[in-house]
């Protein structure tokens, strides 16, 4: 296992080392010490590494991740796993604003709470939050799944496209064009599959309610012309 201490190694050196790894690498286990709230830790990794970050991090941890399994043993600042392509990012604590924003694939698991704008503009990522999510989450969410064990804040799913939102607790309010939808067997199976992949348990798929797009904002409605 490679251990990198950010107390003595610069962030650039760390990220360069991680970027140099290719899919055949034997050095698959990485441990990062003393992140001390630093920014952009393990951003842009593109190989199947297991990376453990021992402590809390700042902005953009694991951004643009491809293939790697990255675990933050602490909390993360804004933009955790932003634009993730594949792989899995687990945050043991809380995450700040816009976690998983624009993510195209892979899975983000937050074991604490997520703040505002979680999953904003998500495009295929699966996000599982064990706690609550803040306001304006899943704004303009396009595809992918957001599974929340706790509550959602104001304006969930505002201007949503085809992402699926599953919330077990209370939703404070729904955003424009977001509505509650019927839970069918296919959705229960989907949640079951996501939960298994997340490694989290203790909840049942039938405890969740589904929210998605009413599809009324997709096309311009000529009756609304006066509003412009």
């Amino acid at each position: 296992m490679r251990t990198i201490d950010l107390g003595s190694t610069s962030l650039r050196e760390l990220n360069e080392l991680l970027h140099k790894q290719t899919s055949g690498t034997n050095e698959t286990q990485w441990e990062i010490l003393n992140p001390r709230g630093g920014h952009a830790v393990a951003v842009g990794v593109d190989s199947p590494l297991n990376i453990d970050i021992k402590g809390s991090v700042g902005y953009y941890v694991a951004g643009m991740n491809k293939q790697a399994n990255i675990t933050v043993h602490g909390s993360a600042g804004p933009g955790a796993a932003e634009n993730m392509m594949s792989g899995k990012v687990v945050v043991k604590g809380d995450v700040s604003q816009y976690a998983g924003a624009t993510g195209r694939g892979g899975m983000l698991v937050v074991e604490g709470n997520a703040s505002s704008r979680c999953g904003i503009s998500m495009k295929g990522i699966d996000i599982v939050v064990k706690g609550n999510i803040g306001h304006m989450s899943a704004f303009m969410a396009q595809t992918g799944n957001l599974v929340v064990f706790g509550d959602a804040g104001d304006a969930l799913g505002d201007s949503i496209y085809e992402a699926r939102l599953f919330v077990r607790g209370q939703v404070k309010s729904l955003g424009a064009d977001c509505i509650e939808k019927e839970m069918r067997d296919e959705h229960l199976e989907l949640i079951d599959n996501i939960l298994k992949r997340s490694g989290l348990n203790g909840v049942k798929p039938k405890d969740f309610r589904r929210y998605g797009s009413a599809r009324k904002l997709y096309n311009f409605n000529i009756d609304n012309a006066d509003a412009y």
Partner: protein
Amino acid sequence: MCGIVGLFLKDAKLEPRLGEFTTTMLSTMCERGPDSAGFAVYGAPQKGKAKITLQSPNADADFAGLTAAISKAIGADVSLDRKSTHAVLSVPADKLQAAREALRTGHPQLRIMSAGESIEIFKEVGWPTEVASQFELAKMQGSHAIGHTRMATESAVTTMGAHPFSTGPDQCLVHNGSLSNHPNVRRVLAHDGMTFETENDTEVAAAYISWRIKQGMNLGQALEKSLDDLDGFFTFVVGTKNGFAVVRDPIACKPAVMAETDQYVAFGSEYRALVGLPGIDGARVWEPEPATVYFWER
């Protein structure tokens, strides 16, 4: 961008180290606010005394002979403790208004940074760690401190445009964000007798809180009202003689993280600002909710 740090001690044993902790916290926020920096330190009040923190770009000339001039003008002994471009003038508490008046009429070139029983504010243009060492922040003691590193958006990079802003006795406010209705609020406040030193939006927020406190509200109530009346982006951290408060606007774009232990409450724009605090690994760490007032008093 801007960076904010704040530390409100509950455990008096840490008070000798307030300045040291605040220096470390401020040093992590340099990139967020490279234009200027400032801090308010609340030290132990001295019985029967009040203090006024002054600033001058021509400190040598302006502070020479000031003690004698003010003593004579108000008919009481005063003392002056100079720190670089700033100096803390200590006066009998019942002569505070007279001293302010003597400064205003006889020494209009001096800028008043703060006045009160406990507060001292130091702020200058420059890289934050250099500003902190210019005033020897690390040696300062007290019960609470609020620091700010500024990346200017709404007004000029000047000493007076730096934060914290103080618009009432022992009060101060720092701000990350920008207000969009500050000219209107300024007009309302000015009409009601509040005065302003700058064209800065944050000064309007500080004056707004002072105005509400003057009307009889406590700090918590004043901040609740600010959510109705101030429009724009803000994370505010506010200090009073005994109080420490945090509020964010309803959109809450401007970052904020807090930590609390039995020994202190701490605020940082980022977690980086908090990592050097004692016992942080065991602290309760959370992101303050939007449009929610957090308020501590001792």
